[in-house]
């Protein structure tokens, strides 16, 4: 569960990144965070992994009180949240396999134990055949998958994806969103920041619209739908595909 309560973030320049943002994302939800560039989507994500601290308000992720989280717990928090960065942040001098293995390595797993998990995740995102290639040898969509694989490898309960379709063509974008949707169906909470309105509309999930650091629209009703309605929705999705 993610809960932001009247969260503000004022940057050193005096500009407001966020002002009075309140939202709740339940466990297992799939939420789009939409808004133009600079609206504050990335800031919310960075607050959730305690990369920056909010200047006001409270933030709770699962059982973690983010604002009052001691520094030595930050690493543990980040292992619980998968993050697909806007600029991917893959290590260019490591193969795809090594990149995906990195969170396991950081978590202290032995190489042999890690290998199996990494291959499973790579298979899940469809990159197993490219595992020994370096990032520079892959296409944009493949790199995005690699970044998703790295975010998934520790089986996080929450996956944050920052503009994962930003630089991709429509077909590839759709593949990525479908992958995220599949991950969500397995129980992972997914929050995806995007400004691709086509995707948002066609998937019919909850959309939080944020502009200039404020929530302007939260189509929260999806979260409270009955399970029957959700079933119908799934059927519709399948027809589309």
């Amino acid at each position, binding site marked *: 569960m993610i809960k932001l309560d009247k969260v503000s973030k004022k940057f050193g320049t005096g500009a407001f990144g966020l002002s009075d943002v309140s939202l709740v994302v339940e466990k297992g939800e799939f939420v789009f965070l939409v808004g133009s560039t600079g609206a504050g989507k990335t800031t919310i994500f960075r607050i959730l992994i305690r990369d920056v601290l909010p200047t006001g308000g409270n933030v709770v992720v699962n059982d973690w009180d983010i604002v009052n989280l001691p520094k030595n717990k930050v690493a*543990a928090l980040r292992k619980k949240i998968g993050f697909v960065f806007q600029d991917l942040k893959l290590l260019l001098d490591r193969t795809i396999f090594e990149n995906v293995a990195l969170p396991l390595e950081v978590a202290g797993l032995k*190489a042999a134990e890690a290998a199996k998990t990494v291959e499973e995740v790579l298979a899940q995102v469809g990159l197993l055949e490219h595992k020994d290639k370096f990032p520079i040898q892959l296409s944009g969509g493949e790199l995005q998958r690699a970044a998703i694989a790295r975010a998934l490898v520790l089986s996080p309960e929450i996956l944050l994806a920052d503009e994962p379709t930003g630089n991709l063509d429509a077909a590839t974008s759709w593949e990525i969103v479908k992958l995220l949707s599949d991950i969500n169906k397995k129980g992972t909470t997914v929050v995806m920041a995007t400004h691709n309105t086509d995707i948002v509309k066609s998937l019919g999930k909850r959309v939080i619209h944020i502009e200039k650091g404020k929530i302007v629209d939260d189509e929260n009703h999806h979260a409270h739908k009955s399970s029957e309605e959700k079933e119908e929705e799934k059927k519709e999705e399948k027809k589309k595909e």
Partner: protein
Amino acid sequence: MSFTKTAWKNIRRSPYQALAAISIMTLTFLAISFFTFLLVGSSKVINYFESKPQVTAFFKNEAKPVDITALKSQLQSTGKVASIKFVSKDDALKIYREQNKDDPLLLDLVTADVLPSSFEISTIKIEDLNGISNALTKSSLVSEVVYQKDVVSTLSAWTGAIRKIGITLIVLLSLVSIFIMVTIIGIKISQKKEDIEIMKLIGATNWYIRWPFMFEGIVYGIVGSIIGWAIATGGLLYATPFLESFLKGIPVLPVSYLQLLMLLGLEALLAAFLGIVSSYLAVLRYLK
């Protein structure tokens, strides 16, 4: 990938930086070993002289045994005297014969009568030598007083100077080696800034990131200390025959291998400490 592997990769990928770090460590520990030898050696020499009879008082021929015994107890009552040894005329002759056994001409000329009997006195503290020798000079029984104050005090002054120079040099070199290591490891951290940032974002603890750099620092330190120690020890062993003939009779050499290995152990510990301090400083400065 374990932290040792990461550290090894860091060293291998920038051999000149590694060389610079190891060189400065080698220099530091060469100086430490060299001055340790010098200090241990000179203090052994001083001990030798201090344990030797430091004041020798030669008695006049007319001095009576009764008076000599009285003087002995008088000296002992001052509490400053560690030992007094009476050397009779016959003893003196034995010593003389021993010293000149290769020269029969000299042996023939001398009889016990010619040689004076004497006291060989050592004091507990070196400072008391002067008082004792003054007291003996005033005594009517004594013809001449000889003491080695000059040798010991000159040696003490030299040792003091060596110690000061050595400690200053060692402190300076240690500081310089820390600065150089901080810079070198700092450069490496800067080069890997992006990697480090990514690792932190995906949940690496500070220690996970620090360890390879700390380990690298320890490796530089220990390799440097081993090389520095080996050069100094090699030099010492090479010079031992020459030094032994130079320090005739003074039991300074040879230095036992156990002591040399103990020195190596201490130096390796110090080296690891220097390595840890410098990499920790570098990490503190560059790993915000």
